[in-house]
């Protein structure tokens, strides 16, 4: 407490701070002994939750790179801008109402309260010691803002998935409005059902890190958008055959793919929301192995079916494996994760071909990755779950648990899908009527960078000297 210490970085001695936080229990100890084990655990869990949340935040860069890389240069600024801005708008919407709807006390269908994070809360107290309105998050012993921040980056992910589906033809402003609906309303409602203590949770549906809660929800919303928007000009020839529209940069796709893979080490292991050694290492292992196996199977499938090891399928395969293992990562054995990943890599290849055949024009393969494998991953819990895994709980079909778990997973998948799809269709339709959804054909051909953004992604240099 000399003058030296009165500098800007002076910090309240930790003991006092902890006292304020933990109802004075710290004081019982002699200061020289440092924080109590319970305090230390809160610190550890908070560190883990925040560091993994940062990794999940980083996935925004991954989505932006993959999506812009798989689109044409004339739309690149637009897609990059969407991916940049979507997190900001989601964050604001989720802060204002989304988090409350998802996690505040309410009924089985909706949280009510928690606007702007208001309301009683004595986090990091856990279990019965917790007193506040976010009871559904009382299992993790971190401060409320850590809970919020971690959940926020997940909400942002769901919103980002949509931007790939509707790429290269949608009005910038219309997309932004939809983002607000998704992050503020749709995602929190179905999220409440599963993670917020709602009816699906009560029914026994399990989704560890969000194959359904995040990925399928993003996928269904995007599918609704695609159906209302229609395919890009030139994607399907008059004879009905597919005219591929190659993206402009495999370097961006590569980088984005690895950013997402890295981010998933936050997404899944971070969803323990506790620095639990056994659980986080198990989840990191299953996550990584499913991804590697899906790379193997998607690459081989493409190689065998097409004669060449299509790199965009390799990357889509990786993401497919990651999406599929997201729900089961803590509930299945390492071996099961390998199988889940292998199958995910096959699903993604067929899904891409299927959607193309159906003239559902999904420029970046978001449906094949997030929707198809979001569903697969959710059902995989019902098949492969084992009580021996760190997540515990009921066994799945293949481990002698019968159909109980699978049924809960299937109902959850359907219910969330139906609700999200219906809400998204409604929202897209209203936005279309009020603001318009699709840019003029001429603008689409010039590219959205000029028509919507007024700014090329790669302005020509020599022409301007």
């Amino acid at each position: 407490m000399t003058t030296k210490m009165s500098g800007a970085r002076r910090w309240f001695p930790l003991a006092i701070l902890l006292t304020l936080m933990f109802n004075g229990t710290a004081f019982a100890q002699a200061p020289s002994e440092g924080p109590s084990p319970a305090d230390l655990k809160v610190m550890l869990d908070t560190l883990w939750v925040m560091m993994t949340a940062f990794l999940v935040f980083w996935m925004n860069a991954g989505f932006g790179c993959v999506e812009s890389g798989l689109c044409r240069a004339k739309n690149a600024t637009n897609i990059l801008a969407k991916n940049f801005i979507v997190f900001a708008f989601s964050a604001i919407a989720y802060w204002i109402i989304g988090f409350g709807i998802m996690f505040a006390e309410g009924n089985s269908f909706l949280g009510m309260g928690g606007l702007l994070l208001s309301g009683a809360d004595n986090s990091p107290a856990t279990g019965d010691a917790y007193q506040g309105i976010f009871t559904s998050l009382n299992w993790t012993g971190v401060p409320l803002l850590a809970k919020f921040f971690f959940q926020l980056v997940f909400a942002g992910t769901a919103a980002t998935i949509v931007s790939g589906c509707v790429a290269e033809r949608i009005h910038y402003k219309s997309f932004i409005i939809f983002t607000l609906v998704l992050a503020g309303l749709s995602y929190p409602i179905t999220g409440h059902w599963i993670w917020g203590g709602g009816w699906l949770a009560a029914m026994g549906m399990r989704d560890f890190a969000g194959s359904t809660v995040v990925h399928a929800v993003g996928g269904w919303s995007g599918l609704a958008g695609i159906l209302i928007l229609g395919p890009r000009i030139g994607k399907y020839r008059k004879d009905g055959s597919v005219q591929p529209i190659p993206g402009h940069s495999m370097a961006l796709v590569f980088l984005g793919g690895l950013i997402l893979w890295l981010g998933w080490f936050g997404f899944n292991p971070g969803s323990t929301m506790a620095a639990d050694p056994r659980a986080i290492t198990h989840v990191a292992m299953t996550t990584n192995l499913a991804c590697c196996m899906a790379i193997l199977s998607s690459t081989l499938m493409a190689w065998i079916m097409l004669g060449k090891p299509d790199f965009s399928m390799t990357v889509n395969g990786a993401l497919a494996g990651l999406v599929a293992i997201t729900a089961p990562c803590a509930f299945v054995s390492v071996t099961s994760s390998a199988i889940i990943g292998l199958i995910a890599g096959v699903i993604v290849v067929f899904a891409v071909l299927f959607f193309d055949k159906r003239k559902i024009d999904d420029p970046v393969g978001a449906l094949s990755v997030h929707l198809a494998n979001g569903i697969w991953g959710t059902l995989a819990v019902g098949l492969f779950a084992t009580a021996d895994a760190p997540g515990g709980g009921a066994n799945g079909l293949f481990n002698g648990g019968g159909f109980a778990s699978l049924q809960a997973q299937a109902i959850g998948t359907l219910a969330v899908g139906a609700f999200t799809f219906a809400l998204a269709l409604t929202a897209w339709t209203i936005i279309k009527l009020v603001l318009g959804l699709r840019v003029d054909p001429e603008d689409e051909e010039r590219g959205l960078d000029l028509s919507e953004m007024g700014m090329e992604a790669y302005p020509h240099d020599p022409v301007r000297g």
Partner: protein
Amino acid sequence: MKKLECIIRPHKLEEVRDALDKMDVHGMTVTEVRGFGRQKGHTEHYRGVEYKAEFQPKLKLEILVRDNQVAETMKAVQDAAKTGKFGDGKIFFTDVQDVLRIRTGDRGEQAL
């Protein structure tokens, strides 16, 4: 023989090529160019300043044809490339004195 040069809008390439496919035109060479003409440049924005990007992206097609193909080729390209708005581009042609096919050494119309 003549060399036709056609300045067209980039997204018209596919249609033009399909039109030529139906005729006896064996090939072409395409260059990305930037054009400047009656078409108003588009407005771009950059860090708070609005400015005219006067040069429009265009494609230049170079097509070698026999003398008697000139008229129909021009028409085919025009029909395919026309939108009726400023900036559709031009077609012009010059006299080519001889052509050689590198692969075979064929000369003249044989080489087209």
